[in-house]
């Protein structure tokens, strides 16, 4: 069976959830082979987990250059690997860096590229949701192999234990790959909350939250639900919450099992980032707010009364 390359998203020695989703998806097209691109020693702690989700092989490309420079080295190593193993498809996480690697790969191989893919059929036909969640598109790469970036949280990961063989990959780079030096990496992630795009539950606050101070209320509910915290553009533009947590047209697209919108009116720019959530719940004092058109359950009311009561109720039940 032909190999399907899955580029592993990992952080701090752990495999990110989207990787398990991609390994699951890869099995419909062939035999999953995980590709670890990272610093020295980065593949070993990931191997067991990758095997658990069906990776028959783990290609390990390890070099300080892969993390010391932006994107270029990863794309070059991956292109070389694709040329040598001729996989049935290449799956990459639809994250900022994932898309960038995929873009460079597409040019290097003169190959078509599909991004933000939600599903992939055995014949390589990809499903994408576009235009703020309003349109479903089926598309295909018509030149080269199916090269797709997979949107986090689109597939339910299912285990399929395998014992992966680890194959070291040579890292051959030129100066042209090392044009952008990474000077520093600064973590700003708050506490132990799940990552926004990967979370099963997202609790977001909007203009109605009123202040940075009041966002504690949003965080409190999020923590009770084991959720990530998001914010509307109105909230981030007003400085209530940091920009990297913005959900919407100019921020992150999320697709959790549950999306809780607090004090968010639901402008199309926001809906673009959360419309494909499985269940949507909203609290807003304006009964006419468009968010209620999407909500499976909506409460018209003062969120400063509704949320503390809800938090109390959840505590009682747990």
């Amino acid at each position, binding site marked *: 069976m032909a190999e399907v390359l899955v580029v592993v998203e990992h*952080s701090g020695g752990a495999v990110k959830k989207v990787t398990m989703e991609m390994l699951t998806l890869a099995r419909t097209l062939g035999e999953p082979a995980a590709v670890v691109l990272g610093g020295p020693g980065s593949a070993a702690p990931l191997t067991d987990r990758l095997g658990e989700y069906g990776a028959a092989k783990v290609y390990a490309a390890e070099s300080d250059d892969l993390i010391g420079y*932006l*994107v270029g080295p990863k*794309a070059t190593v991956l292109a070389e690997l694709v040329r040598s193993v001729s996989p049935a498809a290449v799956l990459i996480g639809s994250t*900022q*860096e994932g*898309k960038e690697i995929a*873009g460079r790969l*597409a*040019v290097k191989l*003169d190959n*078509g*590229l599909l*991004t933000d893919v939600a599903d992939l059929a055995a014949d390589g036909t990809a499903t994408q949701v*576009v*235009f703020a*969640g309003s*349109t479903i*598109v*089926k598309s*295909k*790469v*018509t*030149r*080269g192999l199916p090269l797709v970036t997979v949107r986090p949280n689109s597939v339910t990961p299912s285990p399929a234990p395998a014992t992966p063989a680890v194959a070291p990959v040579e890292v051959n780079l030129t100066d042209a790959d090392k*044009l*952008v030096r990474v*000077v*520093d*990496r*600064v*973590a700003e*992630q708050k506490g132990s909350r799940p990552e*926004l795009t990967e979370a099963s539950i997202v609790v977001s606050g909007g203009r109605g939250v009123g202040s940075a101070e009041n966002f504690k209320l949003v965080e409190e509910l999020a923590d009770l*639900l084991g959720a990530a915290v998001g914010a509307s553009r109105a909230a981030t533009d007003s400085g209530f919450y940091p*920009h*990297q947590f913005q959900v919407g*047209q*100019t921020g992150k697209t999320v697709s959790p*099992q549950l999306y809780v919108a607090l004090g968010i009116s639901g402008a*199309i*720019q926001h809906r673009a980032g959360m419309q494909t959530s499985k269940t949507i*719940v909203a609290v807003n004092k304006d009964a006419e707010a468009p968010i*209620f*058109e*999407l*909500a*499976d*359950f*909506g*409460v018209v009311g*003062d969120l400063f*009364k*509704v949320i503390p*009561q*809800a*938090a109390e*109720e*959840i505590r009682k*039940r747990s």
Partner: protein
Amino acid sequence: MNIVVLVKQVPDSGAERALRPDDQTVDRSAANNVINEMDEYAIEEALKLQEAHGGEVTVLTMGPEQATESIRKALQMGPDKAVHVVDEALHGSCAVATSKVLAAAVRTLNPDLVLAGAESTDGRVQVMPHMIAERLGIAALTGARKLTVDGGTLTVERQTEEGYEVVAAATPAIVSVWDTINEPRYPSLKGIMAAKKKPVQTLSVADLGISADEVGVAGATSTVVESAKRPPRQAGTKVTDSGDGGAQLVEFLAAERFV
């Protein structure tokens, strides 16, 4: 420092958008077309750099005839001139082909710096700066929330999932920006008047040494097989809080097994 800003005309993301039923390309005729919002931040950043370091700012657009309106709007903010790559053959171009055209056009302008929005609101693909950089063999510093220029060295604070990275490279380079980088200016009356006289050069694909079958629907590396409107979400239960709204909310979450 000579700067090229990539500007794309897109259907207004605040309005209904659609694919054309005949060839499944973005319908640009029915929609209200505007400058891609993120590109306004790229224009602003270019103008700020011009104010500090001198040089010329050129707007570069690939798009149909009607994109002229967006080019004029862009020029109203202050750039000196524009290049419009316009050709029937370009209709329906994929990202790979688009990057080929834009890279060729950038090459004719030979700038120190190319600025772009981090993504367009229609495709949201986010790959163009890296694709162009790959073709030109120049550095790509993408997703900038802050850009510093010191002689020939560029330093960017790049937004990431976990926080941010500080990345640095030498010019020539391409930098893409998010809306956190600045606050775009509104065109002044003087700017609006001046824009009418600013030169807009048009180029065909042949002018760029590219053959028509490498671009457009014919040269596309991917294709849309079919598309359908997603069924609109149905509004569910809406209750007005009369003292037990929070409890009712949790009741719903419990029934759905979230708590």
